[in-house]
């Protein structure tokens, strides 16, 4: 029995090393991160996301966006993310300190979304893309997310959120295509993805 105890002990202690290093250590240390204060303006960054954008993160997870889109920028010597204008600096732990859930992702069949809210500020752009990925000239492997929209009869004034669709996608006269609550929340979330504030530990990349 003595030998079996030693075996179990060895098996568990070796695994404990990785548990301490990769689970306990980040769990405890990343909880202590604080915002960075800009010396000139006094602005604190990063700022957490709020309101519908947090619900949008759930929609992002539920529809598996993370299986084709990543959300981190590698440093200049680890890849060409910065040359691709996916960010002007690498992302660091502090960038994610307020995220209830972090979606780093391991695939880039689609574009990186770390700073998508910086590049595309118009909600219509996202609605059109989600309704029909081909509408923006994409020969994409991205599927359409039609269930995030509904076609309904126009009551009085057309809705401000109505998706401006042309060609074959255009709804019949007197009808409009509007995003559902989930669709709106998802786009709110994507618009909130802006990790372009300065952080001392990740200086802007220089040539």
């Amino acid at each position, binding site marked *: 029995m003595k030998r*079996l105890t030693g075996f179990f002990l060895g098996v568990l202690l070796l695994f404990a090393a990785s548990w301490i290093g*990769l689970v306990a250590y980040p*769990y405890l240390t990343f909880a202590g991160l604080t915002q960075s204060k800009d010396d000139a303006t006094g602005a604190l960054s990063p700022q957490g996301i709020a309101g519908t954008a947090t619900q949008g993160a759930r929609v992002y997870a*539920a*529809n598996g966006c993370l*299986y084709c889109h990543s959300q981190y920028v590698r440093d200049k010597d680890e890849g060409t*993310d910065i*040359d691709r204008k996916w960010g002007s600096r*690498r992302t660091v732990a502090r960038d994610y300190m307020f995220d209830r859930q972090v979606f780093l992702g*391991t695939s880039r069949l689609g574009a990186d979304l770390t700073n998508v809210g910086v590049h595309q500020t118009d909600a219509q752009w996202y609605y059109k893309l989600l309704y029909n990925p081909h509408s923006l000239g994409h020969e994409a492997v991205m599927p359409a997310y039609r269930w995030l929209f509904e076609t309904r009869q126009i009551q009085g004034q057309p809705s401000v959120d109505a998706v401006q669709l042309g060609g074959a996608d255009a709804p019949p006269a007197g009808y409009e295509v509007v995003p559902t609550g989930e669709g709106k929340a998802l786009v709110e979330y994507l618009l909130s993805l802006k990790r372009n504030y300065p952080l001392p530990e990740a200086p802007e990349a220089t040539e």
Partner: protein
Amino acid sequence: MNAISESAETKVELSAIDRSVRTPVLLFFGSAVLWLVIASLLFLLSSSQIHKPDSWWTLPGIPWLSYGRVYPTFVDCFVYGWVASTGIALGLWLLSRFSAAPLRYPALAIYGWAVWNVGLISGVVCLLAGTTTGYPFLEFPPYAAFILYLGFAMVCLPAISIAWHRKPGTLYISEWYVLGGFLWFAWMYATANITLVNLPAPGAAQPAINWWYAGSLFDLWLTPIALAVAYYLIPKIVERPIYSERLALMGFWGLALFGGWTGMTYIIGGPLPAWMITAGIVARVLMLIPVFAIATNFHRTMTGAFGGLRDDLALRFISTGAMIYTVYAVEGGIVSLRSVAQFTQFTLITQVHSELGLIGFVSLILFGAVYYIAPRLLGREWLFPKLVTTHFWFLVTGLGLLYFSLTIGGLIQGFGLADPQVPIIAMSDLLQPFLTIQNVGVLLLVIGNLTFAIAFVLILLISAPAKQREVVFDEPEKAPDNSAAEVSVA
């Protein structure tokens, strides 16, 4: 005289042991085969969707069958439904055999089987309905994960208890791996669910924990199960003891030492302290030491008996799987180097590398194990040996097409991603031919797995006529006594 009576006694004991684990093992096999069929169909659907997202036959517009839900559901069905279920059954069988003791609470294992499957069903339904945790490999919502874990505990605690109360003697290599795998999985699954879902970790700690889990899942749960089977069945089928005890020890403790760290290589360049990522890369590369120790051990054990690959179908599956393990580990080491990862990270190579491990290495060995064990537990033979060879060739051809198309496609994608002049949307055009070939590969693979399911249903339902009995496998009594292959722990 003495030797003969002894071996007869051993045989009687063995069959009593087999009887005690027969029902739970067969139940786990049965549900695992069903999950394999479901996973295969989801795999075919998701691989078609990535190839032709707009075609009617990829079912566009149905939210619960959209790629973003089907793909993770396929992975979870495959990992937990097929691999882990079979792994639990094999662990139970191996531990009770080696401990030379019947299972203590067979009813508990049967209830555990039911609970485990309730966990799987609820998890899969939730995933398709869009209720997911959003953490790769851990998508099951907390209640489903809890039920799954409870089922696992109900089967594994009695299994570990047989090993604990075993007759004094040495632990065989397979037992190290089963016991290690059970303990590691119990630890990693509880930790990951608690720290990601129940008491969510702060921001950037989540990916560290998530990929710690994913790496450990592969190296310290799925791999040990497959190796336990290979260490038991290869020497048994070729009727020779394992070549070296030292190599076996090195392989096991090396895996235990490095296995928990390898997951960090999924997020090279990620927002974590550099030492974490470096530790992952170092672990992946050093992992080649135990892998080569294991490979040498299998190779030397089989030297002179390679004819068995042609004659024994179970051995063919198992040793092909063991060879793919080496390929898988070497590729894992290469794509983890920072200079290579620059190009291969985020590409289809990441995906197909996991699939090579899951299908080529682990599943091939598990298939071999089911082919070997099911007839012995049922006292029957496989009805049509042709189905088994069909399964093998469809599987190997399909996997080959899938692997080479996505590896070459992934390299092209990687060089495209590395060049800022190539717009990301142009990549889908470049990838089309490769996605077409992988689609064909997955189709062949799925046909192979369906053949396996048919063979399994047939052996459950129909007792083969006597004249076919000797065709596929040796009778168990021809196998040598295990003690020749037994070695002690350090």
